[in-house]
């Protein structure tokens, strides 16, 4: 393969870009050859649509395998129990949903954007609003083909002799190898609509109580909360919960095309925004408007996919709103019994002076056997914070609370955790490292995140 020029790669947060050789992968043979010709000092990392927020799909000085052209849906078993689909790793969830919906088939786990690849969804073990009922993406993967450091492709399954490598690959951030194809279990659905109940919560305690009491009545549940307002109404929120609507629930107008995929685009945000677009005035105005725009109580409202799941997908490149300095997303989980810590973390964020508009709160269900998977039973909170002076101190202070409570931070969002703190959060790190040593002793698969979190031996920054 011809050596690729260096290009700048960044995560969705755009905060710490580096340069890497981007290799366009069109076939398994391409992937093998890119692996063989890569600079072993810097290694390779698989990359999909670049939606992880930090440095997971960056590899300074090394190679990034661009797998987005490996985007074919290979076969669908619609009659199976459950139905399954076999895809190449570069297929996006958007593409997959559009293809499957006409057959009444539904992707079981959807994160906040459809613009992620199946390979990325596996590597980050993404979760959605239905985690408390369906678990994370990895729970639904029936098998996957992994290109390993030795250049061989191996088929892995969640049970049997390949299970350790399978589960290390789920949530493994691309550091066990490159996922090339996967078979994913699907659900059946009669419609592409949701029956949604919306409730406002007046403060954080009201919200947590409402969620604890009735989350189990819904397949999907998530809350947006106000992270700007202090005092009595701290953590006031809009809780939306729903279930897939059955055909009988649709009005006759929608019954004509119940599986219609409604995903309009309002356009692409131009690259014109300065830093500090999110300031005290705009954040306060947005948060207040968002809260009061929601009905106090409304039940049984029919919403389409974009309304319910992916309002941000309406606008492409929405991350440009944060300006050239970029932003970071801080998402953590603490066990249910640590509700006090959870409340304290929220207070720290609200009182920090750092402003976040897109805030999500959710209850997780059980985790899965993956050593690096993020979800665990407990409360999870996500905030989007523009990069400003002092943000490092806020995040460090939150880390300390989270570690003490036995919680952790989500790697797909992370762009700043230290290796030491990471080790305290992921208690099964050594299980992951043991698998990695077996399948990739030289650390060929590597990334900026891998080096930052010491997931591989240090690589020499020069001719060794």
């Amino acid at each position: 393969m011809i050596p690729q020029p260096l290009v700048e790669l960044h995560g969705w947060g755009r905060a710490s870009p580096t340069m890497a050789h981007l290799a366009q992968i069109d076939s398994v043979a391409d992937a093998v050859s890119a692996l063989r010709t890569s600079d072993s000092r810097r290694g390779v990392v698989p990359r999909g649509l670049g939606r992880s927020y930090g440095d997971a799909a960056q590899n300074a000085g090394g190679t990034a395998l661009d797998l987005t052209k490996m985007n074919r849906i290979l076969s669908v078993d619609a009659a199976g129990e459950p139905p399954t689909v076999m895809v190449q790793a570069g297929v996006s969830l958007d593409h997959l949903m559009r293809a499957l919906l006409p057959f009444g088939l539904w992707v079981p786990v959807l994160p906040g954007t459809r613009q992620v690849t199946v390979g990325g969804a596996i590597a980050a073990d993404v979760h959605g609003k239905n985690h408390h009922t369906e678990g994370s993406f990895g729970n639904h993967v029936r098998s996957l083909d992994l290109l390993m450091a030795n250049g061989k492709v191996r088929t892995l399954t969640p049970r049997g002799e390949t299970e350790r490598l399978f589960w290390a690959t789920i949530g493994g951030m691309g550091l066990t190898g490159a996922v090339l194809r996967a078979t994913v279990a699907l659900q059946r659905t009669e419609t592409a609509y949701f029956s949604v109940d919306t409730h406002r919560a007046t403060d954080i305690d009201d919200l947590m109580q409402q969620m604890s009491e009735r989350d189990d009545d819904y397949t999907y549940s998530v809350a947006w909360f106000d992270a700007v307002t202090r005092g009595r109404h701290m953590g006031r929120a809009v809780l939306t919960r729903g279930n897939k609507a059955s055909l009988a629930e649709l009005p006759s107008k929608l019954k004509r095309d119940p599986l219609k995929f409604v995903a309009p685009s309002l356009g692409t945000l131009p690259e014109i925004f300065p830093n500090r677009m999110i300031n005290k005035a705009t954040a306060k105005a947005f948060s207040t408007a968002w809260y009061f725009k929601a009905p106090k109580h409304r039940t049984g409202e029919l919403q389409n996919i974009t309304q319910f799941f992916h309002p941000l997908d309406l606008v492409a490149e929405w991350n440009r709103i944060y300006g050239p300095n970029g932003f970071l997303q801080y998402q953590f989980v603490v066990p249910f019994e640590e509700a006090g810590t959870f409340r304290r973390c929220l207070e720290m964020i609200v009182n920090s002076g750092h402003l976040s508009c897109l805030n999500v709160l959710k209850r997780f269900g059980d985790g899965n056997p993956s050593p690096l998977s993020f979800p665990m039973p407990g409360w999870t909170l996500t905030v989007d914070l523009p990069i400003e002076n002092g943000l490092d101190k806020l995040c460090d202070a939150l880390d300390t609370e989270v570690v003490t409570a036995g919680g952790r931070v989500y790697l797909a969002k992370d762009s700043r955790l230290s290796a030491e703190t990471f080790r305290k959060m992921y208690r099964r790190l050594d299980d992951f490292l043991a698998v990695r040593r077996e399948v990739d002793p030289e650390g060929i698969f590597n990334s900026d995140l891998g080096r930052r979190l010491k997931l591989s031996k240090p690589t020499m920054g020069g001719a060794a």
Partner: protein
Amino acid sequence: MINAVGAPQSLLLLGGTSDIAMAIAHRYARAGLRVVLAARPSERRTASGAELKNLGCEVTEVDLDARDHASHAATIELAFAGGDVDIAVIAFGVLGDAEQAWQDPDLALELAEVNYTAPVHLGVLLAQRMQTQAHGWIVALSSVAGERVRRSNFMYGSTKAGFDGFFLGLGEALREYGVHVLVVRPGFVKSKMTSGLDEAPLAVTPDKVAEAMVDAIKAKRELVWVPGTMRVVMSGLRHVPRPLFRKLPI
């Protein structure tokens, strides 16, 4: 790599015991920060290392002899043995007695070697490493003395003029590799290098220089004056006609 909130994971200080180098280390110090102190072996180096370890840093001491060119490659090799270097600071230099320096051939040679030849040699060695890792910063501590060389310290000023030009140029050459070079031009710094000298106007502390450097890296700048007003002063002085310049008490 420097993370999203501007915190480096590793710092290489060439001339690691200088006041400015230590001030920089203190600014970045946090648990887990890897610091390589490259300097001549001395009690001062050991003490500096201990100070940083107390702050939670992982410290490695590496021998650096600016005038022993043959040893430079091994110094850089050792400095990178622990992994990537996010920020490498060239913080060593000699001032010498200005009048002696232009009349004593040995002292003149020492100034030229320590302030220009060695930084250039080490700069090229650093650039090779940084090119491979395709990220990182080289910080070159220059001086306003190099902006317009004055009669009163032209030996020192001339070495810094060459130094400054080299690193600005290196920064341009390394752009396409994702590597940044920052040239810092402080005015009079109150440090052990200048102890015993009369303080010049707009004098700054080593910590002020470190603060300006940290901010410049955050803002991805290539050149920073400390204090900022020095830029205005020097751009004025730069254009003063020579007969008049000669008469200025500077």
